[in-house]
Each structure stands twice: as structure tokens, then as C-alpha cells.
């Protein structure tokens, strides 16, 4: 059960990281990129269309992570503490903190992207998108390292 949930969590996270990276670059990258370049095509997506999917993926990923965390606490954490992986525990603590802060920001992020008036809240929208992108990237990398910790760096 835990393995299935963890794989699902990882798959949702992959979809989320792709969507948020597209949107963050489309929001922040300079619009004068060559239209036929890779970067030009990467940022030329309708960023607003990603917002609902990102909210849904973030919530799903958070929910799956919250369930998997119960198994982690009982089955994995004692082993990590025994093996003195204190830094990994610290990074995971930061992941859970950042993810929750991102969860709180999600309604404001959704509001900034809704509607057709793209000129309103432009800076706030960009700031919240970058914040969420950072949180998603951080969580993805830390989660990946934790998943592979018995082999990582040993």
C-alpha cells in the first residue's frame, strides 16, 4: 500500500513539476526570446491554462505525501536516525514546512491567475508562481533523495 501511494505521489509530482516550471518560465522569462528557439517555444504556452491543473496536482500531491508520511514516520525514520542521517532529516523537515506554506498560498495563487484581466496582479502573480515553483522543486529533489537515501552518498 505504502509503495503504491509513494509511486503515485512521485508520478503526480512529476506532472506538477512540469506544469509549474512551464508556467514559471512563461511568466518570468523575457518575451524577446526567439520564437522558433526551444526557449521561445517553452515560454510560449498559455500560462493561465495551467493554474487549475497546478492547484489540483499540488493538492493531490500534498494529500498523498501526507498519507505516505505516516508510513515514513513509523517504518523509515527510526532507521534514518539510527544511521545518523541528520542532514536528510533536516531537509525533510524543511520540505514539510515549505509544502504547507505553499498550501496556504495556493488560494491567492489561484485568484491571481483566474479571470481574463492579465494586467492585474502581474507582479504578485509572478512572485507567487516563482515561490510555488521553488517549493515544488525543493520538495521534488528532497523527496527523491529521501526515497533513495540508502544508496545516496553511501
Amino acid at each position, binding site marked *: 500500500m505504502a509503495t503504491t501511494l509513494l509511486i503515485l505521489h512521485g508520478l503526480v509530482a512529476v506532472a506538477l513539476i512540469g506544469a509549474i516550471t512551464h508556467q514559471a518560465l512563461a511568466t518570468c522569462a523575457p518575451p524577446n526570446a526567439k520564437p522558433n528557439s526551444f526557449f521561445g517555444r517553452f515560454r510560449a504556452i498559455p500560462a493561465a491554462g495551467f493554474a487549475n491543473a497546478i492547484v489540483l496536482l499540488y493538492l493531490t500531491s500534498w494529500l498523498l505525501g501526507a498519507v505516505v508520511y505516516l508510513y515514513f514516520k513509523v517504518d523509515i525514520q527510526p532507521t534514518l536516525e539510527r544511521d545518523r542521517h541528520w542532514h536528510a532529516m533536516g531537509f525533510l523537515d524543511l520540505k514539510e514546512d515549505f509544502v504547507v506554506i505553499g*498550501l*496556504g498560498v495556493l488560494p491567492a495563487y489561484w*485568484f491571481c491567475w483566474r479571470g481574463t484581466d492579465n494586467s492585474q496582479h502581474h507582479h504578485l502573480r509572478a512572485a507567487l508562481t516563482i515561490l510555488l515553483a521553488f517549493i515544488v522543486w525543493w520538495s521534488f529533489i528532497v523527496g527523491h533523495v529521501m526515497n533513495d537515501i540508502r544508496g545516496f552518498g553511501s
Partner: protein
Amino acid sequence: MIPASAVRRFTFAFGAAFALFYVVARLRGLALFTVYPAQSIVLLGMHRSRDFADPVLDFLAPEMYWYGWTASAAVCALVIGLIAGLLPDRLNWFWAWCVWIIPPMAMAACIYLTIPWFRL
């Protein structure tokens, strides 16, 4: 139909207050409930295994506060968000400023609170 400006104030205030109260809950240990995953028990409020059992047996009943901190922050942020929704439009700039500034500051505070792990 709720006006868009009220929804804006609610969402912005909620995001800022959530980050702020999460850090306060984490700092002061204000968990709405404590989860004991090994026993599948949820207790209201903040409880420590060592308060009930010998500290050396702590590993048998690991407690989890993260869910309780999140719930505490959500409840407080909901109240602040609803209050903000009732306030006048001229305060919109304030809530936008808050949701811009407070979450990154809360993340920095969380980094500070995590430092002990890196000193072990």
C-alpha cells in the same frame, strides 16, 4: 454571489496568515492535535510520548505534530481571511503586500528552526 474584491482579500489574507501562524504554531508547539501513527491514535492538543512513558521507549510511539500545526494554521488563517473579506476595499494593497512578503519570511524562519538538525 461573493464580490471578487472580497474573494481577493480573503485569499491574500489567508495565504499570509497561514504562513505566519504555521511558523508560530511550529515555534510554540501549538498543534491542534497529535497523531500517533504506530498506534493509529489521534489526540486533541499537543502530547509528547515521553510525558506518558519512559523516554527510552519514545521510539515505540513516535508522535507527529505536522498535521496538527497545519490544522492550527488553517483555522487561524480562515478566521483572519474571513475578517479581511469583510474589511473595505482600500486595504487591498495591504493584503497583497502581506501575501508577497510573509510566506518567504516564514520559509526563512522555518530554515532557522531547522538548524538544530544540521548541528547534530
